[in-house]
């Protein structure tokens, strides 16, 4: 029964381009009639996934199952799905009518039937009077509509949309979002949508698939994804958020920013390190000292249209973002509280850097394709070990002369009183760094680790 509801099933898709993994074991079930959105930053693998479904890209491993049949080897022109391309890809040598009729003409559908269907589908996208127009003479939004009509006329079971609204201006994008949503309702077919715009994803989708670095981070409804992000990446990518280090004291009691709060999360255990997400609109101002959980000083206040965005410094030295309808003057002391419901506790993904290492000799060890000095007492030459480095012990340099190895800043997370950076080394490995210095995404950095900051651990036996 449940299997019958599925229209597309992705099984363990992996893909490499020039040695770079763009998809890493992606599995997903898509239900009939669902509006599914792949959401993520550029290079996260969302477009590759779509192209694999459409058949333009062959996965290195894994398969695409459509209605129970493996279509991995089926060429794109025999797949019962159609695509709306990012830059429309309307044929410039054909007019609107011939563009839309292209698919039907290939199927040798009778001319009068083609005409009827073209008229119907152009009406659906509100482009009825444009049949004879040259596609070049149309505006971006109109070209978009023709592209949708052209894809829909073959009556596909699944419509793939690759960032279809990215080239439109904001107002037009909002209008098209509403129209797409209505079209989806009217047609009842499955839409698979790719975007990097989180707001668009939240507006349109039944289900959002958040992707990063070729992996699915979280699958859920827009409300789930927004309210209960599973990790720092999702929390940071969707909406604004305060992401902070915390400690679960016991069930329903969590400490962060050096204060204790009631929360609703359970099952993490006692005295366990966690990450905490608080949305800026969920921190409330109060004048009642009994309600106040912590005090802060307003640092900046910016009008954002509907609300004011304020940065406050807490009495314990953390910086938080707050959104409120009322402004508070810069410099004023305020009393704040957070509802237990609005605190999202997440399992820590990692607590330290850990690399597979090989002891190269007395006081020398190799990991990340680089040789480091460190204390190797208790280890023999050639022995495999686990090298552990705390996040704050990795030094970043803006030059490579004194560095042990180099890399680029891949992802930056502000944690209230420090930055947590993901650095991708030149060899393609991730190394995480806690720092107070400000770096930009994409910055080229030298990485230095002092001998005293590397601790070697024995690898569990049986593991050659």
């Amino acid at each position: 029964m449940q299997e019958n509801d599925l229209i597309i099933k992705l099984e363990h898709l992996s893909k490499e381009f020039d040695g770079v993994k763009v998809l890493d074991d992606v599995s997903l079930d898509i239900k009939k009639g669902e509006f599914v959105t792949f959401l993520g930053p550029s290079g996260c693998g969302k477009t590759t996934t779509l192209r694999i479904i459409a058949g333009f890209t062959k996965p290195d491993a894994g398969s695409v199952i459509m209605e129970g049949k493996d279509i991995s080897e089926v060429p794109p022109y025999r797949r019962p799905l159609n695509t709306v391309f990012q830059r429309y890809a309307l044929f410039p040598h054909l007019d609107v009518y011939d563009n839309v009729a292209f698919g039907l003409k290939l199927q040798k559908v009778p001319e009068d039937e083609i005409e009827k269907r073209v008229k119907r589908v152009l009406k659906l996208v509100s482009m009825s009077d444009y049949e004879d127009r040259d596609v070049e003479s149309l505006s971006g939004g109109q070209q978009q509509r023709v592209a949708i009509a052209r894809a829909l006329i073959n009556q596909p079971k699944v419509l793939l949309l690759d960032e279809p609204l990215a080239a439109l201006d904001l107002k037009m994008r909002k209008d098209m979002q509403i129209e797409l949503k209505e079209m989806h309702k009217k047609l009842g077919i499955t839409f698979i949508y790719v975007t990097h715009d989180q707001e668009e994803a939240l507006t349109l989708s039944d289900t959002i698939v958040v992707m990063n670095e070729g992996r699915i981070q979280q699958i859920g409804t827009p409300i789930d994804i927004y309210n209960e992000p599973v990790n720092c990446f999702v929390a940071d990518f969707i909406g604004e958020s305060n992401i902070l280090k915390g400690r679960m004291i016991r069930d329903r009691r969590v400490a962060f920013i050096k204060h204790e709060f009631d929360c609703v999360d359970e099952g993490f255990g006692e005295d366990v390190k966690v990450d905490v997400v608080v949305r800026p609109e969920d921190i409330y101002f109060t004048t009642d000292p009994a309600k106040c959980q912590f005090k802060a000083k307003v640092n900046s206040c910016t009008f954002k249209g509907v609300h004011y965005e304020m940065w406050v410094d807490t009495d314990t030295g953390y910086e938080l973002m707050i959104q409120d309808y009322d402004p508070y003057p810069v410099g004023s002391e305020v009393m704040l509280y957070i509802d237990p419901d609005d605190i999202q506790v997440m399992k820590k993904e990692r607590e330290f850097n850990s690399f597979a290492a090989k002891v190269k000799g007395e006081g020398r060890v190799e990991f990340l394709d680089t040789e480091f000095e460190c204390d190797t007492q208790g280890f023999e030459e050639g022995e495999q070990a686990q090298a552990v480095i705390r996040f704050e012990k990795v030094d970043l340099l803006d030059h490579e002369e004194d560095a042990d190895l180099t890399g680029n800043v891949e992802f930056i997370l502000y944690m209230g009183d420090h930055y947590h950076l993901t650095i991708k080394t030149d060899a393609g490995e991730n190394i995480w760094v806690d720092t107070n210095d400000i770096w930009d995404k994409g910055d080229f950095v030298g990485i230095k680790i002092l001998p005293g900051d590397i601790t070697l651990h024995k690898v569990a036996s049986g593991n050659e």
Partner: protein
Amino acid sequence: MNKRSSWALPYFIFLVLFVVLPLLLILMYSLQDASGNFTLSNITKFFTDKDALGTFALSIEVAIENTLLCILIGYPAAWILADNKLNRSAVTVVLFILPMWINALMRTLATAELFNMAGIQLGKGTLLFGMCYDYLPFMIYPIYNQLKKMDKSYAEAAQDLGATPSEVFRKVTLPLSMPGVWSGVMMVFMPTVSTFAISEFLTNNKIKLFGTIIQENINNSMWNYGAALSLIMLVIIGITTMLQGGEKRAEAEGGLI
């Protein structure tokens, strides 16, 4: 005259001296008899001269054959060169263009020598071979450029809508590459009509083309008739250029996105 347009002055002078003036001279000579009196007899002579008319028809015929041959060989070559999977290096493109670095006359002489060595009778076949060899790069390069800059998403969109690879080629790739083909045709057809060196060396002057007749007249000091023939050729080439140019412009507009 503002500052920027004064930069155009040297080019303007160049054009007047080396393009406009010679053209006017051709026009003048073609409308004069040997003693300098105005006459239309040079023009009417051509249209009554069976030999000249026949040569002209043959020139057009050879030019059409050569152009078709160049398209037939050049299009697939350009298509292969533009395909990233079939051709991974830019070196192959350079190899196709490389013969152009050597003087055409020298290449033609060498080709003739090769035919002699191989004992192949010089004639129309060798003429077409030589022309095709000389002009092929001019056909390949514009088509290659057009195919190379074509957005791949057109082919993908066609496939997505159900077109098999051969249908993608016929209904999308080929029509969208036509501007390149037209450029190629212009660059091959026009020069072939007026060529004389290739026919001289590769047929031992057995086959005379229009260019040869002009050259012969000029060499024999029949400047006025030679000028008239040049003028007629210019007019005919001009008309075909405009016809094709119009078509090409429409296509080129289609190729822009």
